[in-house]
């Protein structure tokens, strides 16, 4: 569920393997060296900090004990934590010091600490190097957040935390019936384009697939590549685009059945029909060389008006802030409807909470970690986050009436227009990494390597069947 990349930072691992190999025959032991001390999972938790639960201290934190947090430094930066959340937390708990650190590679930094039994209390588990949340929950390393969601809100009087959130937030962090993760940033997905470029050519964003094809033809005539995504590392943007089309065509239940690994879920005709439409589109209106490009390179091309449509989430504008010229204005439109008889209306969009935050259950101060999350869910903190990152949060309406940037306004408008027709999307990518992997290769094949819809369906169904059969993988339901 995390779409924001850090820098490619596999270097430390690289050095290790290479050094090991250079010494001679030694590439292998690095595996266990890096997974660190083996399984010290049954740690006594009785010495964890605790205070008395009062109305003012609903989570019962020990006001004198420090809380350690670690923030992923990616597209959203870290300023929201250091400049907004921590000061807010410390205003209420001046004696509870926040021990802060940041990383671009979450799993390499945090996983050894979890295995060593001394994890940070609150962990921002995001970025391309994130830890498998399902495995964390299955291993009992994540704190049950029920108390947090039942606690009163930090600054919205008379409401529980759970009542202040966008619907679906808690469900997205729920594993086998209990909430273990907070997806904080609220992302709306669609086709992004340059409003000024479109105005100049008097192009209007398409509502139907026929419009989409006609407009793409015009764009192509104008010497601009109509559509593309970064096949080298961000093909899951396209997976989401396809899954969105599937949901709009055949209803959200198809995505649910796929997530639940129901037999033949990928063989649903809607999957094939959507894949056919996109595959045919890919043959004509994109550049197969994009398979070798990264998301940053593609996004740069769009900023230079060499690419018209780009399927992405609402973090895009902030991520590109540095590279966007003044003449470029981000805008977003819902994925066009495939047919006139789509189950969902043209306005329907995929919007979901992303950026996983969780509290380590075996840290020194899990209560403090939860309290920090409660501070983050304050309306004040949410607005601060949105201002700094140009991303919405799951705190409902926190940024309403505040004009921050054209892309954010466009996203908010699209969200409002969608009304009730907002669907969470799919979770198989977070639940079953093997399927995520396969979907990335399969979509690249479909869009850039001349694949067919049948092949796509076969590959995905086979991957799903394999996961289903593998008893060593923990299964989830939604």
């Amino acid at each position: 569920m995390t779409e924001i990349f850090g820098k490619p930072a596999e270097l430390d691992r690289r050095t290790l393997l290479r050094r090991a190999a250079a010494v001679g025959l030694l590439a292998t032991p690095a595996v266990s060296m890096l997974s660190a001390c083996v399984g010290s999972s049954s740690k006594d938790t009785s010495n964890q900090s605790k205070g008395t639960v009062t109305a003012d201290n609903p989570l019962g934190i020990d006001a004198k004990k420090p809380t350690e947090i670690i923030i992923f430094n990616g597209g959203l930066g870290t300023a929201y934590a250091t400049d907004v959340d921590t000061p807010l937390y410390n205003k209420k708990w001046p004696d509870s010091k926040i021990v802060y650190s940041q990383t671009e590679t979450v799993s390499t930094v945090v996983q050894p600490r979890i295995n060593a039994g001394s994890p940070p209390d609150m962990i921002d588990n995001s970025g391309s190097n994130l830890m498998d949340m399902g495995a964390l929950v299955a291993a009992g390393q994540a704190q049950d957040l029920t108390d947090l969601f039942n606690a009163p809100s930090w600054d919205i009087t008379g409401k529980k935390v759970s009542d202040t959130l966008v619907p679906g937030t808690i469900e997205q962090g729920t594993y086998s019936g209990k909430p273990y993760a907070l997806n904080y940033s609220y992302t709306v997905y669609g086709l992004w384009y340059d409003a000024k470029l479109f105005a100049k050519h008097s192009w209007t964003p398409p509502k139907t697939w026929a419009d989409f094809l006609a407009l793409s033809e015009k764009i192509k005539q104008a010497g601009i590549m109509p559509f593309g995504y970064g096949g080298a590392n961000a093909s899951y943007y396209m997976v989401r685009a396809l899954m969105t089309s599937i949901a709009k065509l055949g209803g959200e239940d198809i995505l649910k059945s796929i997530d639940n690994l129901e037999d033949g879920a990928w063989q649903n005709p809607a999957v094939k029909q959507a894949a056919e439409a996109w595959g045919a589109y890919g043959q004509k209106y994109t550049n197969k060389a994009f398979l070798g490009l990264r998301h940053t390179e593609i996004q740069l091309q769009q900023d230079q008006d060499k690419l018209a449509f780009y399927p992405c989430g609402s973090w895009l504008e902030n991520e590109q802030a540095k590279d966007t010229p003044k003449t470029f204005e981000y805008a977003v439109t819902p994925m066009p409807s495939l047919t006139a008889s789509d189950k969902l209306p043209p306005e329907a969009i995929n919007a979901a909470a992303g950026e996983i935050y969780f509290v380590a259950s075996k840290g020194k101060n899990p209560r403090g970690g939860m309290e920090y999350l409660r501070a983050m869910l304050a309306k004040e903190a949410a607005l601060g986050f949105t201002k700094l990152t140009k991303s919405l949060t799951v705190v409902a309406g926190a940024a309403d009436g505040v004009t921050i940037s054209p892309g954010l306004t466009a996203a908010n408008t699209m969200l409002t227009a969608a009304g009730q027709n907002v669907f969470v999307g799919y979770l198989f990518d977070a639940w079953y990494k093997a399927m995520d992997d396969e979907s990335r290769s399969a979509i690249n094949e479909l869009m850039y390597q001349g694949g067919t819809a049948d092949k796509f369906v076969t590959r995905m169904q086979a991957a799903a069947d394999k996961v289903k059969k593998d008893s060593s993988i923990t299964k989830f339901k939604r």
Partner: protein
Amino acid sequence: MRHGKYPFIIGFLAVPVALYVTFVVAAYFQTFRLSLTGWSGLGPIKNVGFANFVSLWSDDLFWKSLRHNLVLLILLPIITIFVALIIAFLLNVGGGFRGGLTRGVWGSKAYRIIFFFPQLLALAIIAVIFGRVFAPDQSGLLNGLLPTKSAQLWLADGHIALACILAVLIWQAIGFYVVLFSAGMGSIPSEIYEAAALDGATRIRLFFRITIPLLWGTIQVAWVYLGIAAFDAFPLVNIMSVDRGGPDGATSVLSLMIYRNTFELSHVGYASALGVVLFFLTLTFAALTLRVTRRDTVEL
């Protein structure tokens, strides 16, 4: 003189042995143990016997990766050693025999430094740079040189992606082996060349009849090192390749599978099984190389 022998030996060996045992031997033991478990990398460890190896057997990606490793294993040493030997020969002996000394081609000192440059760059940097060289669109260096019509997809083309990575590995390795072979050639007494030259041997003959036999030990070592490098190839594949090991597994190698299974797929047990396979492959390779290339050493 026997007095104080043991403290001397122990003084020298204690630290390296302790480091070796801690970071290599102990880690191997853990890897072997973990390969028999279904450990996810977090939480409790469950023994599963040989299940990991059974699923390895039926894992297409494993066989694919193994094949890629073998391709690299064969081509990387052959090409690198061949090219490095020729360059080293030209730098040291190629200029012929003059004034009582063998010498390299003109400017050989400068070349020697230039050839070593790639070795000074971290592999990660090389990978990023060559990512641009091989860029599949018109911004790519190679595609910029080619006429537009014959532009290639390079890393995005499953048929040639592995060759691209092999090319970079070779480019990076040659400098080091040129220096290694140069050092080896430097220790060959020039009288031998002198005598051969007086007898009218050509440069090519010098190369095959004198340089190679007298350099055999060095070549053998180079072969083992390069073979081990071919079993790794992790950094280049991880950074350069499409979709990491793609497109569609076309560049996947064992070390990348180990990394991904450990850190991304939460299959530490499976990754360890791969590690065990890699361990035996590397060991077999080293033993085979040393045995097959064993020749009588030429005494000088």
